[in-house]
């Protein structure tokens, strides 16, 4: 029984993959993404936190790409390459955790708001709508400014302002699923709220969640860098804080284009990769779009 279930699951994945594979942009995004994540994960095998130290192994500030450092150095003579490598850990971690936080809140609220009709659902929807219209970056900035900038704060600030769109999406999907006759059938079979939410709604929104979480990570990474740029950061080297550094130390006027362009390109590449994968997943998994 279980092996059969396994083969079927493998087959389902195979089917999914064969469709996903046809979306070239999605596959390219996935490749970039896998590369970025793997690099971030294996970073400690090659370098450690000391690459962010201003006292160790530094070269001439703002020295350009060359033998000494592959893609130039920053204002304190640290290697941009190493900083980017190490900083990707922070950027990706914040992106993932904030997205997961947003997802969890959004999913719970979205499913509950879609499943429970009456005042409870209406209340949840009201709250969601309220959060949705709040200008999220502005709110995140206020939250981070008030709570002070630590990794946890930034994650919470992003997560807490990013969940409503997920909740909206999940709620819409929940409503769509709940309108399907199989929910009625399930109720007629005697199913309770929990059964319907976990057995029917959740599996049906899960693919959408997967797509949406990838998109959410993308926007969380951008938000993190923007917050860092606006002066509230997690105090750890990330691509956003690097860009902030390049701005603070006027890399532009000092001709250190590598300091501005490369971290920015990294953000764009990774965000783009997440976006492409997310869109591809959405197209493959969301029956409405298919």
């Amino acid at each position: 029984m279980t092996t059969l279930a396994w083969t079927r699951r493998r087959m389902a994945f195979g089917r999914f993959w064969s469709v996903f594979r046809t979306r070239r942009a999605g596959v390219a995004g996935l490749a970039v993404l896998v590369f970025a994540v793997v690099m971030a994960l294996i970073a400690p095998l090659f370098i450690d936190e000391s690459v962010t130290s201003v006292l160790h192994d530094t070269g001439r500030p703002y020295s350009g790409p060359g033998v000494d450092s592959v893609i130039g150095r920053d204002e304190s003579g640290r290697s941009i390459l190493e900083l980017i490598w190490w900083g990707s850990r922070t950027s990706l971690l914040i992106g993932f955790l904030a997205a997961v936080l947003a997802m969890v809140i959004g999913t719970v609220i979205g499913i509950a708001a879609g499943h429970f009709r009456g005042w409870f659902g209406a209340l949840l929807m009201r709250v969601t709508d309220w959060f949705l219209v709040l200008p999220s970056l502005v709110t995140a900035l206020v939250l981070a400014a008030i709570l002070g900038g630590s990794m946890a704060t930034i994650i919470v600030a992003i997560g807490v302002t990013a969940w409503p769109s997920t909740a909206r999406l999940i709620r819409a999907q929940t409503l769509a699923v709940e309108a399907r006759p199989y929910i009625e059938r399930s109720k007629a079979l005697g199913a309770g709220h929990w059964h319907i939410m976990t057995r029917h709604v959740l599996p049906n929104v899960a693919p959408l969640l997967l797509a949406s979480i990838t998109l959410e990570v993308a926007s969380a990474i951008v938000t993190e860098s923007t917050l860092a740029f606006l002066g509230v950061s997690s105090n750890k080297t990330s691509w956003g804080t690097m860009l902030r550094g390049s701005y603070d130390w006027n890399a532009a006027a000092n001709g250190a284009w590598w300091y501005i362009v490369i971290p920015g390109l990294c953000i764009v590449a990774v965000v783009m990769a997440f976006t492409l994968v997310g869109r591809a997943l959405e197209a493959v998994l969301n029956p409405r779009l298919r």
Partner: protein
Amino acid sequence: MTTPLEAAEPAAAQAAGPGDERPAYRGTLRYAATKVGGALLSIGMVIIGTFFLFRTLPGDPVRALAQGRNMTPEALDLERHRLGLDKPRFEQFIDFVTGTFRLDFGTSYEYKRPVLDLIWDRLPATVLLAGTALVIAVGLGVWQGTKAGWRPGSRFDRFSTGTSLIFWSVPTFWLGLLLLMAFGNGIGPIPGLFPTRGIESVDAPDGFAYVVDVGMHMVLPVLTMVGVVYAQYLLVMRSSLLDEVGQDYITTARAKGLRDDQVRRRHAVPNALLPTVTLVFMRIGFIMGGAVTVEAIFTWPGLGQLFYRAVKVPDFTLMQGTFMVLCVSVILMNTLADVVYHVLDPRVRSA
């Protein structure tokens, strides 16, 4: 054979007279009323939320006011009294709410002026910047989205979708910095064409030249905002057009002998525009977020810059006032969007 009921129905509609949509109109009014009610509720939540959010602040606001200067205890007490901080929390809350309703957001620590005045001063610049950017972004997005969605998979589609996705992935501030470097300062063959700060030259000329001057100042900030924002309009327009193209009524329109562009202009695009219109208003908050960054980079004297400064100082009264105004304006925009959508889409109108 007319039945009493059937007879009653057209009678009611005819009584409304041709051109007059009274029943629908009344429906819209009622709808608008509930939406406005909802918006008021949201605004109330904003006020309450803001109060508690800003009351959790660590530190003593009076000392923040002193900004590190040497103040006597008496002076501090006096100030505390003046700000009403010596009252119980609940009374403070009541004061806060009544103050807010009287549009009294307090006095900025930083500018020593009523927050409302400051906001009022800054509003036009933001409206100009964000408004222009929005109009251009929507225009560009809708135009490209339409073209792309009408021929999905075409070279234009792949190119425009790809480009917009790249812009979409770019952090606003980074794009702003690059533009500032490239067009403000000039790089290589690109001359430094555009001013890099503010809304006008100090010695702004009059008349038409002034308009040109302001226009020149707007180029870079508007470009930055448009670059980041237009993608979503493009993508939404594209996908909603794709949705529409699959519909049967499009086939009907073709069957009627309409030209391809007639089908697009008369049927597909107007219908596909509806979701885009809502999105335009829904994402006003996003534009506001962009405005904060862009205004900070280009020294644009708008609300975003005011807010950014308030965050940096930090000037909590100002931050709180600006935050509320930003939120409330977004809520109002959304309400407007709901009502506009309601008026535009007959399907929703009577639902």
